[in-house]
């Protein structure tokens, strides 16, 4: 069964932020909201600087879905985690629960308090009519419905960021790691890192 996943190769990412800009541009994301961000460690230290592009990981057993008091999340059969902005009350609990800091909040509430949640949709829109204007206004483009991959991955110049079916992504990860002479049994980042602290 298809399960859509992102993978960012920290050996390739050059902190150009092309993915961040592509995402903001494609979905007309307001200032202050970043569905995707790039994190860099050891900046300026030769051989040690590493960057990673992060957005919603579309978790299989999504903690955001577990915590949401309005139960506005749903997981598509292809594993993409989406939410319904018409139900969301902007409480922010998904952000507390998300291991990856994906949920975002603009200041569009009354007197500038935080409004409803916004996050990466894997460019798959939301519960509104597919490819409708409302869907675009709420969630941005629905590139998956158009048979395209997410904008960020398609724009990534070094192909550090890849997106698609988990088994295909896994093959690319293993191929690249083996080619580098790395250990393919180690997972790159995510749950494993939390659980082992390694």
């Amino acid at each position, binding site marked *: 069964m298809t399960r859509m996943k992102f993978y960012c190769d*920290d050996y390739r990412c050059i902190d150009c932020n092309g993915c961040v800009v592509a995402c903001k541009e494609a979905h007309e994301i307001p200032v*202050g909201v*970043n569905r995707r*961000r790039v*994190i*860099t*460690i*050891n900046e300026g230290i030769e051989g*040690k600087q*590493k960057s*990673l592009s*992060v957005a919603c990981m579309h978790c299989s057993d999504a*903690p955001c879905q*577990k*915590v949401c*008091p*309005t*139960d*506005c999340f749903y997981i598509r059969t292809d594993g993409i985690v989406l939410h319904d902005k*018409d*139900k*969301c*009350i*902007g*409480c*922010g*609990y998904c*952000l*507390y*629960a998300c*291991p*990856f*800091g994906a*949920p*975002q*909040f603009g*200041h569009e*509430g*009354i*007197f500038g*308090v*935080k*409004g*409803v949640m916004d996050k990466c949709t894997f460019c798959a829109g939301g519960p509104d009519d597919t490819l409708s204007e409302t869907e675009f206004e709420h969630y941005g483009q629905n590139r998956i419905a158009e048979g395209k991959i997410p904008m960020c991955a398609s724009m990534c110049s070094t192909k550090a960021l890849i997106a698609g079916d988990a088994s295909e992504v896994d093959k690319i990860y293993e191929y690249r790691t083996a080619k580098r002479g790395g250990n393919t049994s180690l997972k*790159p*980042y995510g749950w494993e*890192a*939390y*659980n082992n*602290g*390694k």
Partner: protein
Amino acid sequence: MESKTFWECNKAYILTALGLGVVGFVFVGFMMIMDWGYLIQYTMHMMIGDTSGVLTAPASELEQMVNAAFGPAYNSVAPEIIRASNERQEYIWYVFFAEIMIFVFLYVKNGRLTPTITRPDDMVQVLTPFQRTVIWLNIGMILMLVLTGFNITWSLRSDGGDLPRLLREFHELTGLAWIGVWLVFTVIAAKDLKGWRKNTLFRHILPGSFKPSKRVIWFFYAAMGAGLCFSGAMIITLHPSSLTHADVIQFRRVLLYLHFGASVLIMFFILDFVYASAISVKGYLKGLWTGSYPREYLEQVAPDVLEDLKKAGRQ
């Protein structure tokens, strides 16, 4: 005889400590999944100004990346937040039901004191316009905060949408406004500070003195209110931003948990206050509006208030 007097003097404190001790022990010992060791060490780190939650230097590049991108030690606090949100939604009805049952039991056991008023025209001015303004603001805002706050807790029942979202936004705004009202009310209700009344800042302290049970309520109102104001204001101030996320997320998780806990505790003591001032004795709500109470009402229900007014030369 000695011990009976001691018991009588300290009954309210002992029962409160026992009740909270038992509930706290069961809760912390058997029901919570929080990593307490981490939380204690983390609190100490926060005291020296480091909110990041990174307690030990990362052992690997991967761990360093995780800390920088997502924040550290996910499993120590976040799963508790998820669980607590869900369980509050499901079980808090039973907690409130049990609390109300405590008061029903007390009512059945102790009955109600209904003062006899034969001279309704003999009124005593007790509350100044300033005190009444603060009291009404406090009542209004607490009602609003409880309604809008538990609107979040139970939004599975409301199904979310525009109205619950608006109410939630009002919770944040009312909360910010309540900080001032909470502070002023805490001061004016601090009857134990009566010696300070000559000071211009403190002279609005309410007349009368605290009975132990009311002193406990005041203490929890002050302490839980402080917890709610601090956690609420910090949650709002540390607005989630993708750039600062890893530095503050652990702190925000702890703050939300503090807010959960303080809101449940303050609710119990608010219920206790309503019981003590309007159910176990017949209340005189009009007095809160006009500021004056029948002399006989005060003689029978709150002689200390009359006494205090006399001492202050207002009688």
